[in-house]
């Protein structure tokens, strides 16, 4: 029982890490742009396919593949801002539909170029840290955990210590007020899209050897992440991280002690309960949208 609890704790920590990466990116985009990026799961998918192309296809190192995933998806984010979200800035629902259109395009492209079947990604390392009998953490999972901590800390420092970060936070909290302060909304939007998309891409790239990589893999991630950012409070980066951890732990423990389907229901009900008690999420300062 003791080992089971410890192992489950490690499982949950890993889940919390990649969910937090994707969720923080989505919150950032929503906070600054005011648009729900439905294609966020597909950005995660693109990151994973970056690994397929660079690490599996071109036989380059995994680290390079992750870096390429980060930059390529960040660039896609920049393009999305220019081509979709900037022209539709005044109309969040149109932005939503545009991101749905993009989602369909990205899925179809992945299916056409890589096939509908799951991709095979050879393991980067098979090392496993064994703490005791029945408690172990594969190194690949540790990578994800460490990377999430490093990236999110880095982002936090950036937001707190730099002028750009200050402007970004200001825009995420109140767009009009930020504009009045002389912050260039376009620049900040570009920055938010690059960081948000890049985080999804890096999460996809890092977890690619651990999950099934196929064209429709974004779907299950986006559902989880929506739940997380709602519970955390839309627009709150800290809230997203805390909610990601809470959701991952609840879901993992319920899966282990009951089963996966019950865990899904519990996760959704928990979210509804949080919303009924606090209709703007745990950390959502006030009503926006």
């Amino acid at each position, binding site marked *: 029982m003791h*080992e*089971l609890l410890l*192992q*489950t704790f490690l*499982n*949950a920590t*890993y*889940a919390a890490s990649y969910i937090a990466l994707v969720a923080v990116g989505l919150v950032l985009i929503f906070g600054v742009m005011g648009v729900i990026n439905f294609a966020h799961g597909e950005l995660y998918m693109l990151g994973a396919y970056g690994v397929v192309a660079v690490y599996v296809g071109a036989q380059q190192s995994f680290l390079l593949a992750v870096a390429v995933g980060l930059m390529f998806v960040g660039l896609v984010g920049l393009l999305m801002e220019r081509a979709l979200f900037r022209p539709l800035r005044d109309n969040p629902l149109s932005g939503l539909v545009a991101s749905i259109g993009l989602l369909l395009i990205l899925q*179809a492209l992945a*299916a056409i170029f890589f*096939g*509908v*079947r*799951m991709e*095979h990604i*050879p*393991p980067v390392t*098979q090392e*496993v840290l*064994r703490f005791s*009998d*029945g408690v*172990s953490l*594969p190194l690949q*999972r540790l990578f994800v955990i460490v990377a999430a901590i490093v990236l999110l800390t880095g982002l936090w420092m950036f937001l707190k210590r730099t002028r750009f970060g200050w402007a970004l936070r200001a825009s995420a909290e109140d767009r009009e007020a930020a504009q009045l302060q002389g912050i260039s909304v376009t620049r900040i939007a570009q920055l938010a899209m690059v960081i948000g998309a890049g985080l999804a891409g890096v999460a996809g790239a890092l977890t690619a050897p*651990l*999950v*099934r990589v*196929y064209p*429709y*893999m974004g*779907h*299950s*991630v986006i*559902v989880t992440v929506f739940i997380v950012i709602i519970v955390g409070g839309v627009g709150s980066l800290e809230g997203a991280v805390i909610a990601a951890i809470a959701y991952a732990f609840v879901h*993992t*423990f319920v*899966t*282990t*002690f009951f*089963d*996966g*389907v019950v865990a*899904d229901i519990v996760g959704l009900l928990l979210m509804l309960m949080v919303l009924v008690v606090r209709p703007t999420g745990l950390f959502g300062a006030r009503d926006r949208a």
Partner: protein
Amino acid sequence: MKNLKNFGGSFSRRRLLAGANALSVSLLSSGLFPRLARSGEPIKIGFLAPLTGEVAAWGKPGLDGCLIWAEWVNALGGVKLGNERHNIEFVAYDNEYDPGKARTGAAKLIREDGVQFIMMLGGDTWPGVQPVAERSGMLVSTLLPSDLTPDTTTLIAPAEVHPIYNVTGVEWMAETFPNLKSAVICAQDDALGLPSLATYLAAFEAEGIELQQDPLLFDPATTDFAPIVTKMLSSNPDIVSLDTCYSDYVHPICEQLFQQGYEGKVISCTADFYEQIIEKTSKEFMEGFIFQFPDFDDPALNDPRVNFKDPNDFFREYNRRYPGEWGAVSWEYASIMDLWKEAAEKAGSAEPEKVLAAMKSGGKGAHAFGEANWWGREFFGIDNALVGNWPVVVIEDGKARVKAYKSIPDWYDRHGELLIRHMEALGQMYYQRG
């Protein structure tokens, strides 16, 4: 406002008149019966399966296999009906795994394309096609025998007899490793996972293998399998059964089993791309992995009892054209076409009714894995599943090998009531479905 009501009045009267007119015309023009191919004309076969979306992996690779099949058959002169030869032409319709679209697709294939036979994946989409098939008398095949019911006499399950063949793997395992006595099982909670679960539970019970914990169900959208594996390993089983997990789940589950230090036996329905699982785990870990689908380059498939034509060449050609696509469905649809072609030539006609009669005459048929019986009265309420031997495949030194061909009807004769009991407990018998 008042004027508008007047509009409404004239509107509906006109509508009624024109409506009755349109109705009668369309009733007259709609031919209810499939057209027959004239001499020399190609015979059209419908392919009604998901080609896009999440379930596409169960349709698209099968269509690709059929295209190779048609090319090869047509190169040798096509199908000989009486004295005339006809080429085979496939007409595909993407049903997106939606019953409504499948219904539309079936209507289009039958009435507009004039197909003589429709191959489907079945499952969720079959109930939408069922009334169309019943009214038109169209011959339809499914890969999921759990679609069979006594109401539809023209639905056949001639290739896959999922999940009943899973008993052969368990039976072989119990004979070969009699000391393995405890098992755990996980299954995805869907139309494929549940009947398979009942089958494994019955097969384990028949061999005196004890289940250590309740079956662990997971949602098909699951991405992280670590918690599921942790849960399964917490009761130290001799055997882990992966049920009929899609290959997309078999891979991550095996990887987790390996990483969490499991060293016991693994039995599964499928292990598509097992060489990739070996790469993700180790040769030693996968040694002795039991499943049900042979590689088609396995020399054991050249056994004279096997009816699939040129399995080794087919496998090679398929992999050349569609690298990385091979899976069970790649050959299953094509093997159904072998059966159909033989029956059509025997009947001297492509007419669905005659082909079906020729197919089932004598109660036996040439299944891909050897001669088999049209079977299922007790189990599906109708003898429309082609059931005989099924291979037990084991990974040895990194390569899948057919270890035995085991008879499903023999097992059923001994343990049939167990299977029915477990199926009933999960609500999967034909009289419980729907």
